């Protein structure tokens, strides 16, 4: 078997023999692994990757994406119930706090993901385009954070709204954004930036899938 065949073996149908695998790695791992052979997972993830990418360092992008999903789910709940709910009721405060910690997790994993990309030189060659898409998503996510603070509706929102209004949002073009205007801020926070992020993340993941793991340094 050549290396090429090996690498592209995952494009062919491959039976998964649960019993044999159970003997090798145990029931739990075998059960989880079986998903790798079910559509659409088999196409989404591919099945064969270089062995050097079998470390947790290569899970960070995925964990960032998971945090993003938590953010979307908690964010939708928050938007449905509104500011008085998330500011003044115990359940609302708890969901808002989960949203906050999902954001912390999102940026934590995103930052180490970027460090991994830098340290392994994964931005080289045609992968630069995907690197640029990823970094643009990071910058957008930082902007998303600002509008999250503005939409929150507590003391920090008031202070940051006025501070940023006189610093950043008094400039041409940016002047169109009024940080004390809740409806505008929430629209940007739950619609404009998240949808752009979703598209960018979709393209990012697709390109990772198409281009494969970057070659070793």
């Amino acid at each position, binding site marked *: 078997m050549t290396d090429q065949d090996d690498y592209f073996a995952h494009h062919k149908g491959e039976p998964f023999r649960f019993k044999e695998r159970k003997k090798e790695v145990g029931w739990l791992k075998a059960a989880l692994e079986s998903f790798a052979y079910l559509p659409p997972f088999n196409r989404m993830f591919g099945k064969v990757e270089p062995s050097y990418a079998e470390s947790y360092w290569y899970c960070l992008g995925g964990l960032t994406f998971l945090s993003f999903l938590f953010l979307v789910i908690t964010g939708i709940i928050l938007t449905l119930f509104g500011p008085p709910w998330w500011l003044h009721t115990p359940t609302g405060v*708890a969901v808002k706090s989960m949203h906050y910690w999902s954001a912390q997790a999102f940026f934590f994993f995103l930052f180490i993901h970027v460090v991994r990309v830098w340290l392994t030189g994964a931005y080289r060659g045609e992968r630069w385009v995907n690197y640029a898409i990823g970094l643009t998503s990071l910058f957008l996510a930082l902007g998303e954070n600002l509008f999250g603070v503005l939409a929150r509706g507590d003391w920090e929102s008031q202070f940051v709204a006025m501070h940023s209004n006189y610093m950043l949002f008094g400039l041409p073009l940016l002047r169109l954004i009024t940080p004390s205007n809740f409806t505008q801020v929430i629209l940007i926070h739950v619609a404009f930036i998240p949808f752009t992020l979703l598209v960018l993340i979709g393209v990012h993941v697709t390109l990772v899938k198409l281009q494969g793991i970057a070659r070793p340094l």
Partner: protein
Amino acid sequence: MSKIKDKSESTKFSIVRHGFWKYPILMIVLLITVIVMGIWVGSPNWPRATIKNSAQMEPGGTIWAVSQELDGASVSYTDPYAYGMKNPAQRLVIGPLESAKWFLSQKQRQALSTYINAPMTKRIEWAKNYDKAIQKTFPVSKSDYTPVPKMSNISMLRGNFGPVPVIADTILKLAQNGYLETYFQGISPGNTFEYTNIWLYDRPYMLNTAIRNGLTDDQWGMIKERGFAPGPWYLIIPAVAHVLLPAGSTGPGFIFWNSLFAIFALVLFPLIPGLRNIPKYIGLYKLIYAVDPKKSKRSEFSMKGDHYDDNIRKEHKKKKNL
């Protein structure tokens, strides 16, 4: 299972099984962590500042700010067109008084009418005189805090102030009894908080509160939350630009430094020969790889060319076409 066995013998490629047992486990761990932190630790939730509270805590600051809103020296004049305000004096002082005219005293109504009927130069002269007189009641502050004049000192002031002291005192009372905030909520164009926030930011109480909690620019406020840690630590790069770099606390300077960093990270670092090879020289990638790719059994191919897997794909395409 033969194929899988073949791959496990090769150190170059392996089936990416880990994606299907590491991710679900990590996801569950992450989900539990987020839920526990959400319930147990909570999140920043400091109650909103209100006009009523601000006016009750610092009545002197409220009076002083009214004089500055009338003479054009208040913070709101930084962006007088914000939220369709156009004229802070009209929007924040005269408008509220006119709306409350029906329950004002004879003296208060008289003061308002005298002010409105006076020429613009006269109005500004009165307000400036009052502003200057108030500033003389406290020594020049050496600390970061904005000084707050005492009400007892303000009430002793005499001079060519016209109706301004009565106007400022009326605004103070409307603020303290809650009328002003309700009025602003009613007239804000897109949302209920706009004029309230402008009014609060005109008073020293809000800025002094920020200073007390370490939230201003020079206190690295950008990466902090009031009464809660951790704040947005991930804003560290914009914060460095905002605090340390020249003109970084101004809008254009802030955008300039951040754009410069973005260009470096997006274009220069990954593309300029020499710069882009830094990770190779540092050699930390060795800690990241699960196995050493150079020691793999079938490593010859992997060392050829810059994009070996891209080459593989081309080869594969060729074969397919054949």
